[in-house]
């Protein structure tokens, strides 16, 4: 194998370290969410609110009384309209409420931690000079599956958690379930899945060619 140039080694090391950095950041995110879920007192529970979302209409299902205070804000020459979302905060959540508040983003962070870990392993094989191995094809496939699951399930899980939070309260009518999967994430997962299949096929072909004289 030809000796790799210093910039090639530098680039590979940089990529691996960057991926590792993101892996650490997401891992810290998981820890922070866990800490918030377990340790937070009432006040910090308000940091994760419930988005009162729904389409692009400016909250058409709210009574006039609800929306009266959410009019237009004039800031300098710009007119900024408060969008179709508002946040419902829970000032003193119990543990169950904290699980419902922090659980969905925690799951998202966990998925990203696993994805970054897999990407880090792939980058490590690149640094060692042999990334075209079947294991990396499987890692790409797993990444595609995880990202696909995230794209399909993130919003429903969040919405179900939100509904459970406000069930039986006056705020229940404000939370509307609008499920529209993020097609960009799904598309990215499909692309990654296709790349995984190509990668695995390439690794098999290379294995067949190895030892050919």
């Amino acid at each position, binding site marked *: 194998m030809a000796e790799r140039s210093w910039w090639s080694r530098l680039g590979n090391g940089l990529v691996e370290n960057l991926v590792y950095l993101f892996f650490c950041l997401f891992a810290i995110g998981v820890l922070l969410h866990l800490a918030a879920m377990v340790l937070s007192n009432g006040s910090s529970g308000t940091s994760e609110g419930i988005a009162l979302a729904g389409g692009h209409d400016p909250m058409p299902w709210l009574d006039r009384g609800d929306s009266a205070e959410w009019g237009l804000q004039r800031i300098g020459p710009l007119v900024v309209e408060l969008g179709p979302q508002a946040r419902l905060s829970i000032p003193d959540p119990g543990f169950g409420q904290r699980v419902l508040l922090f659980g969905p983003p925690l799951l998202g962070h966990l998925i990203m931690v696993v994805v970054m870990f897999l990407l880090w392993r792939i980058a490590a094989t690149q640094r060692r000079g042999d990334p075209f191995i079947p294991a990396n094809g499987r890692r790409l496939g797993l990444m595609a599956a995880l990202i696909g699951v995230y794209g399909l399930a993130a919003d429903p899980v969040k919405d179900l958690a939100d509904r459970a939070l406000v069930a039986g309260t006056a705020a229940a009518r404000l939370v509307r379930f609008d499920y529209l999967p993020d097609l960009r994430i799904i598309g990215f997962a499909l692309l990654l899945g296709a790349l995984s299949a190509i990668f695995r096929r390439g690794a098999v072909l290379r*294995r*067949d*060619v*190895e*030892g*050919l*004289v």
Partner: protein
Amino acid sequence: MPADEEHHIVVHLDRLLDERGMTLTELAEKVGVTLANLSILKNGRARAIRFSTLSAICTALDCQPGDILSNAP
């Protein structure tokens, strides 16, 4: 076929080279294959051989493919 599946092909390059008083390096030069690859073939570590390589070896050693390879189950 899985690449690491067992086979029973035996390569007789050693004997042929001895009989002709030729070194592996000389054969590699005549055939146009690297010494490393030819060594892999000689030591039975090759998984496959191109027809072009086989043909070139046969020409260089003035033999038939059956003289180079045999199946020993």
